[in-house]
Each structure stands twice: as structure tokens, then as C-alpha cells.
């Protein structure tokens, strides 16, 4: 009975968040969420981080979630607050990041009246979320919050929106304890034993096997990465990671072939192309990975482990589908592999490795750095030094990126030994992701080194978050590879559009040193190779947030590259290699 309820909806909401383990919430106030902000003011359990734009609140929660494995939490107001959050929500959906986003809404009696700051938030966010709710009755509030956390974090993780009309958070509401079972959403996590046996039989007979592991392994928790490493070592199979999967297998391990896909290594892509048995784990055969579908690894039998049944047989038909949690399935595979009497074809595997080593010998990521004083910094070299210097210092390091050439160079040249250390916008490719994501990572790991590897164009998309860094004294390091171009777009214009650089020159750039200083941070710059190490060391030593503006070779392009519409064996290698003869077809030109 309403008369017996003693707490307001806002208080019930915060109680439910606390019971769900929320410690930090990223948000921005406004009219529709005033009662929630008032309740936040009167408690100490949940820390609110005030961002400067709602998109950044969502990316910050993504960084928080991806670096901890927990659910990120966001609070924004109605109307523009909610619409500004949409890009972040879709980013989290594409990259399977568990989030709960609370959006304010006009009071229930005004819904549909075009009221001030009204938006059909559940309508707008339906295709940008895993699920969303509009709370219409106070009795449902606590249950919906608990359900939202369950849905966000179970099965394939994703963002969930709860739209909260202002009267619902003002009126008194009852509390219900966290629920355990959801009525209709019960994702399968245990692998089918028959499918595991079939997979092991296939893997035992493999002559040219490969393991292709993606972000699903990260989402399955650190145990899944351990299971992946254990399985790879037990079998001796070569292993490649997707962009999202980097860190699930140690980059320094000789069994690691590097990243695959459009800007993947020569050996990873040719091994995918030439394999006879492929074990895909927590990866979704994305178009950036497969290249031209009808030429993708034609001769292989494919085993696909994914917690999301709709990711299986979506782009590429597979032979053995396994709907399960990646960690559980990998442990089951390892147990079945060890229990099986069937011999593995060790001689064939040795021959396969010999072939892979020939491909490796191409050194597809090589670049030529002019080491003379005054030499122009190659962007790859800047990343390589950043990696080597941070590694030598031994401090726990997390990397976020924006989107573009710098992102691919970071993926290629920064080695990750553990999962949850690499945060990048893979599926949606959201410029402006890296700085707010780094904020979220730094909040979750106050003593760690958090670096946003950025481009000079991307960084400007959420540059206002330098203010948030200052307010909360977050010592995030922004490492800008400044080539004065939207480099990846420029690269495509060079390749596909006759080098007509339509609108891709970064004109009228700010002075990043002054920009940093105006936001109470430290700015520094390197313009030649002899200055690079000094700037990196100064950046790492600096107790405040830093923008390091690294002037890099403007003409450098990102290689290797599988041009759109091409197959894995039609990669373009860089100018430092002999021409490969591949080109872009008319059919490829329409692809993105």
C-alpha cells in the first residue's frame, strides 16, 4: 500500500543501485532528474562523476566496465540528455559492454504531449540497447533496476536503459530485493557435451589449425583468458586475436600471430585463409575480420563458440556451433582434448608452423624510422617506444584509443599480456571514445597508468572532458599522434578516390599545449625523433593529466591492409615491401 511506503522513488533507485554494487555513476543533471540528484546529494555510498557531455558519460562507464568486468552506470536527464547518450549506448551494444543507463523523463501524465525536454527515449534507444524499460508504476521501480543489471551482465553483455518519469522518482515507492531469476531471459552458458566431443574430434585431426579469439573471451572474465592460454598451450595451435580480443592471449607468446583482419598481420590473415580447422571463440566473423565473404577461409571446417546464438551462422556458416560461455566451453574443450585417446597430427602441425614462420618472416608490420637527430617521427615508432618505455617501468598500464590510423597502429604495435587492459571502439568506430573511456578506467584504477592513444582529429570530439579530468584530478595521459589529417579517411581517399583529400585536412588545430594548460593539465610536444623518449618519460613522470602532442609523419599509411572487397590472401603490404598486385574492385569500392 502506498501509505506504508516511506522512501521516494529516487531513494529506492539509489538503494537498488547500491545493492547491485554500484560505486560510481557517470552523469549530468537536468530538470527531469533533479529528484535523483537531490537524493544523491544526501548519501555517500555512490560517487557521482560529473562529465561535460552525456556521450562522454556513457563512454566513461564503458571504460569503467571494460577495465573491471563490472556493470557501468550512467545517469542523464530527459530529451537532449538521453539523445546525447545514444552514440555511447550503440557503441556499448556493438562492443558488448554491460551498462545500465538511467534517463530522466517528463512526468507520466505529460508523456506524449511534446513537453519541454521530452523525447521518446525508449523508442529512440530500442535499436541502440540490449533492452530498455519505461517505469510506469512505482511498484515496478526496484524490480526493473535489478532486472536491468541482470540483463546487462548476463548472456552477451550490453547496455540497458531505464527511463524514469519524474513523478515516479518523486512519489513514494516500495523496495524489492534483487531478483535472481528472470522469467524469460535465461541465456545458456553450459556447452553441449556432444558438440564439445565433435569439436575435439575435428581439432585432433587438424593439420593446419588456428584459434581465432575475440572480445567474448574478455567478457567471459579473466578465467576465460586463462582457459584460452591453457588450451592453446596444450594443443600447440597458432592463435590470433580480433581487435576486441587483444590481451586474451599474451602478445609476447610465440604462439601468438598478432591481430587479424583488415589491418592484421600477414601471418594471421594467411593462416586464417589457409587453415583446415578454425576454432572461433567469442568472435563474430565481422566484415573487418573476414574480408570478402565468398573467399573467406574456404577450405576450413569451423567451430564457433559464442554465448549469443545469433552470432553463429550469421555471416559465415559453421560446422560445429557451440552456444556457451567462452570460459566454460574452453575448459570443456581442454578437458575433452586431454581425455581423448585420439592422437593429434604433430608432424602436420610442425609443417604448418614452418609455413607460418615463412609468413612471419615478411615482417608485415615493419617500418623505417629515420633515427638521425631531427628525423620525422613515424607513428608506429611512437607507439613502439610508448610500449617499450611503459613496459620497462612495469606499472599496470591501460590503453584506450580514439578511432582511426592511430587506433590500428596501437593495436599492431602495443603488446597486451592480459585482458581488460585495452579499451577501443571496435564495432561502432566512435571517434571521441578514448578520452572519456580513459576517465572511466582511471576512476576504476586510481593508481594505474591510463593512456589515451589519440589522433588530433578524434581527440577534439570529446575534448571538453579535459575539464572532468581536472575536477577529479585524474592523471590520464593523452598521447596524440598528430599528422594533421583524419588519417584513415585520407588513406582511403588515397587508395580509392585519386588522392582527392576532400575535407580530411585538420585545419585550424588548437595549440594542444595551451589547450592542456587552460584545462589545468600539462602540455608537451615532440616534433622529431630525438625528442620522443624525453616527452614520453616526462609524460609518464607528470603527476597531472597530460596532453602529449606528437608530430608524426603526415604521409604515413596504415599497413598491412586488406582493401575492402578483397580476400585475406590479397593483402596490401606497405611501401617498404614489394608490391603485392592486389587492388580495389568496383564491388569493393561500395563497401565501407
Amino acid at each position, binding site marked *: 500500500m502506498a501509505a506504508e511506503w516511506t522512501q521516494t522513488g529516487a531513494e529506492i533507485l539509489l538503494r537498488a543501485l547500491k545493492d547491485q554494487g554500484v560505486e560510481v555513476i557517470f552523469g549530468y543533471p537536468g530538470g527531469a532528474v533533479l529528484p535523483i540528484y537531490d537524493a544523491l546529494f544526501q548519501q555517500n555510498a555512490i560517487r557521482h562523476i560529473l562529465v561535460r557531455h552525456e556521450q562522454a558519460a556513457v563512454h566513461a562507464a564503458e571504460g569503467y566496465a571494460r577495465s573491471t568486468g563490472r556493470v557501468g552506470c550512467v545517469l542523464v536527464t530527459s530529451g537532449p540528455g538521453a539523445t546525447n547518450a545514444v552514440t555511447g549506448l550503440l557503441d556499448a551494444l556493438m562492443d558488448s559492454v554491460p551498462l545500465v543507463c538511467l534517463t530522466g523523463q517528463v512526468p507520466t501524465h505529460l508523456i506524449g504531449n511534446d513537453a519541454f525536454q521530452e523525447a521518446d527515449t525508449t523508442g529512440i534507444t530500442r535499436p541502440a540497447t540490449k*533492452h530498455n524499460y519505461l517505469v510506469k508504476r512505482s511498484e515496478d521501480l526496484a524490480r526493473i533496476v535489478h532486472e536491468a543489471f541482470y540483463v546487462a551482465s548476463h548472456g552477451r553483455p550490453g547496455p540497458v536503459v531505464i527511463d524514469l518519469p519524474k513523478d515516479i522518482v518523486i512519489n513514494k515507492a516500495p523496495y524489492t530485493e534483487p531478483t535472481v531469476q528472470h*522469467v*524469460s*531471459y535465461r*541465456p545458456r552458458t553450459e556447452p553441449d557435451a556432444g558438440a564439445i566431443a565433435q569439436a575435439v574430434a575435428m581439432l585432433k585431426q587438424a593439420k593446419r589449425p588456428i584459434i581465432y579469439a575475440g572480445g567474448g573471451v574478455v567478457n567471459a572474465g579473466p578465467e576465460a583468458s586463462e582457459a584460452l592460454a591453457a588450451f592453446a598451450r596444450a594443443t600447440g595451435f597458432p592463435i590470433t586475436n580480433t581487435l576486441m580480443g587483444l590481451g586474451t592471449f599474451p602478445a609476447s607468446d610465440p604462439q601468438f600471430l598478432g591481430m587479424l583482419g583488415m589491418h592484421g598481420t600477414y601471418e594471421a590473415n594467411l593462416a586464417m585463409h589457409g587453415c583446415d580447422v578454425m576454432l572461433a571463440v567469442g568472435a563474430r566473423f565481422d566484415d573487418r575480420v573476414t574480408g570478402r565473404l565468398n573467399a573467406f577461409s574456404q577450405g576450413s571446417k569451423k567451430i564457433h563458440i559464442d554465448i549469443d*546464438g*545469433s552470432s553463429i*551462422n*550469421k555471416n559465415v*556458416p559453421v560446422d560445429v556451433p557451440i552456444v556457451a560461455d567462452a570460459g566454460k566451453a574452453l575448459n570443456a574443450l581442454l578437458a575433452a582434448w586431454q581425455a581423448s585417446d585420439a592422437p593429434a597430427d604433430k608432424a602436420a602441425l610442425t609443417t604448418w608452423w614452418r609455413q607460418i614462420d615463412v609468413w612471419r618472416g615478411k615482417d608485415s608490420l615493419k617500418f623505417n624510422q629515420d633515427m638521425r637527430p631531427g628525423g620525422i617521427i613515424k607513428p608506429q615508432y611512437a607507439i613502439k617506444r610508448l610500449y617499450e618505455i611503459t613496459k620497462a617501468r612495469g606499472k599496470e598500464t591501460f590503453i584506450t584509443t580514439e578511432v582511426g590510423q592511430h587506433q590500428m597502429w596501437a593495436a599492431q604495435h602495443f603488446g597486451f599480456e592480459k585482458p581488460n587492459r585495452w579499451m577501443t571502439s571496435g564495432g561502432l568506430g566512435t571517434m571521441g571514445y578514448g578520452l572519456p573511456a580513459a576517465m572511466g578506467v582511471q576512476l576504476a584504477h586510481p593508481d594505474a597508468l591510463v593512456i589515451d592513444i589519440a589522433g588530433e582529429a578524434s581527440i577534439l570530439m570529446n575534448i571538453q572532458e579535459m575539464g572532468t579530468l581536472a575536477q577529479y584530478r585524474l592523471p590520464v595521459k593523452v598521447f596524440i599522434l598528430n599528422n594533421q589529417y583524419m588519417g584513415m579517411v585520407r588513406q582511403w581517399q588515397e587508395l580509392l578516390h585519386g588522392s582527392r583529400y576532400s575535407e580530411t585536412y585538420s585545419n585550424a588545430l588548437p595549440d594542444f599545449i595551451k589547450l592542456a594548460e587552460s584545462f589545468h593539465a600539462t602540455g608537451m610536444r615532440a616534433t622529431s625523433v630525438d625528442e620522443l623518449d624525453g616527452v614520453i618519460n616526462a609524460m609518464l613522470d607528470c603527476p597531472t593529466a597530460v596532453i602529449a602532442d606528437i608530430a608524426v609523419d603526415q604521409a604515413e599509411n596504415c599497413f598491412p591492409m586488406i582493401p575492402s572487397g578483397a580476400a585475406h590472401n590479397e593483402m596490401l603490404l606497405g611501401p617498404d615491401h614489394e608490391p603485392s598486385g592486389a587492388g580495389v574492385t568496383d564491388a569493393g569500392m561500395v563497401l565501407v
Partner: protein
Amino acid sequence: MPSLTDTTQRSATISVLVDNESGVLARVIGLFSGRGYNIDSLTVAPVDAAGRHSRINIVTSGTSMVIEQIKAQLDRLVPVHCVSDLTMEGPHVARELALVKVVGTGEQRVEAMRIADSFRARVVDTTLGSYVFELTGATDKIDAFIELMRDLGLSEVSRSGIAALARGTRVIQASPSLGR
């Protein structure tokens, strides 16, 4: 099951049991439009006494791989309890209802009534110059009737879309659905 690499198009009648909550139909329709799947027919109504669950019947078409994908995508929607491909899972009955208005006089009007009789259509409204026929049956029967009425004064058609059930004792229930 037909091979996933088979490129021939097939029609599928899919029944989906969902929580009867606001927005659930929008989720299903948004899934079809957002991913470019066809909807040839769609019906929805609550089906249990308490009104907690609704049944959505969808007729769609595509290659085997696309239809498998449609089912997997439907199955992972949070309010979806179960997805049943009636076309693949054994024999089923599918019926729809049509109201067909035919305007005319004289011999045309007599002929329309004669054909309606042979189709077992009922007259649910009549004036001196018009009939409204009610007809239930499989989609192709209704198509055939409407085609015949075209020359006899067909003026308006309203169709329900199909309702479908598996034949025999097989049922689909709001039980936990695995494999999404």
C-alpha cells in the same frame, strides 16, 4: 534441416511467445525493419487467461541462413519466451480471415454470391448494391477468392494475417528458452 549454404528462398511461419508488455511488438517489428528482413504477414494477440503472454505469428521469407538468423535474433530479445518455426518443425495449420466488399448489381452480383457459396464465404453485410463476405482459410484460398472477385465488383479487402498452430499434440509454451 536444409543446408545453410542453400540460396533458394523459402517461406517460414514463425510463432513467438512473448511477455505481453508495452513495446514488445515494436521490438519485433524494429528487428525486421532494422535488419532488412521481410514480413509477409504478422498477427499478435494475448493468448493466456491472465493476459500475461502474447503470441506473435509472422510469415517471412528468405534463404535458410536468413531464416535461422531471424529465429536467433528473435530468441535473444529479452521479453521473448520461445520461438517456433512451424514450417520446419512438422505439419501445422495456418488460417486467416478476410472481409471482402463486392459492389455490383444484376448478373455480376448473382455470380459473386455463387462463387462465395463454393468458397464457403459468409455474407456478413448486404445492401441492394453490395455484399461484405467473410472468409477464413489458408492464404492461397483467400488469394484465389479475391482474384475471382476482381471482375465482379471487388471494392475493398481487409485481411487479418495468419494465425497458426502446430498439428497434433505439440504445443509451444512460455517455458525457459535456451540457446539464445
